[in-house]
């Protein structure tokens, strides 16, 4: 799992990022699941993990963060 130390140290930021990740995860269709490591998770299960702030939840937050950072920096469409 990526190093999440920086943002997990700020409780206020953690809550904001949880909300952000949850909004994005809510768009996952009900007829799909996501394989993460040894587990397979439905949308509702992912939301629970994010709410709890456990390892899986933090991984999902980190993936969303990385994507948004790369989107904002232009890295995602740099070859366009």
């Amino acid at each position, binding site marked *: *799992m*990526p190093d999440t130390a920086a943002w997990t140290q700020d409780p206020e930021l953690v809550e904001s990022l949880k909300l952000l990740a949850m909004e*994005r995860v809510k*768009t*996952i*269709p009900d*007829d*799909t*699941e*996501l*394989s*993460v*490591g*040894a*587990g*397979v998770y439905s949308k509702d299960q992912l939301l629970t993990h994010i709410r709890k702030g456990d390892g899986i939840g933090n*991984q999902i937050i980190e*993936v*969303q963060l*990385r*994507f948004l950072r*790369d989107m904002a920096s232009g890295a*995602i469409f740099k*070859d366009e």
Partner: protein
Amino acid sequence: MSSLLVSRPKHDLPTEYLFHWCKPVIGMAIKRGMKVLDLKSGKASWKIFVSYLKSADPDLIFLNGHGSAHEIGGQNNEVLVSEKTDVKLLKGKIMYVRSCESGAYLGKFLVKNGLKAFVGYADSFYFPTLIEYKSRPLLDPLTRVFLEPSNLVVTTLIKGHSVLEAHLRSQNSMIQNFKRMVLSSSSSRERVFATYLWSNLQSQVVWGSKDARV
């Protein structure tokens, strides 16, 4: 005759999907005249893995399953490769690991100790599934977008290309799929999971000789 060792445990849904998605790779290797050492399901044990390394001396090793920065697992997560592995057995070989995180540390460690080249993932490896395709993983169109590019690492190596070419072809395939997924014309299912394909793309790493080939 060059040879390919494949480990494909099958003890939960993620490993079951990977188990089936190895089939096109095995088929291509056989078609190309490679000897395939297939450690499937219960055969994906440490004992059999080591005995095949000793007796068959495969050129290319393709491990599927669960992993961490320090271990790669086989059936029921029995450790196949770790820092405690006798790395002499891996000397001069090319390894692709489709598991979480083994590219973060273990891959570097193995290369430092004699493995010729390693391709793997520094972070978690993600793939989505459509529930209705659970019994037919190879037909799952959503999974295909993630696992076809990863298969390309091995199939490109089987065709005789270098490790760097294998890595880049796989990455390019992920980029093409990603770009298609984020288009407004793509399905909502694809758009939602583009984030996770981006993560796989960013975490795929190469250690060791980029010029190595089978």
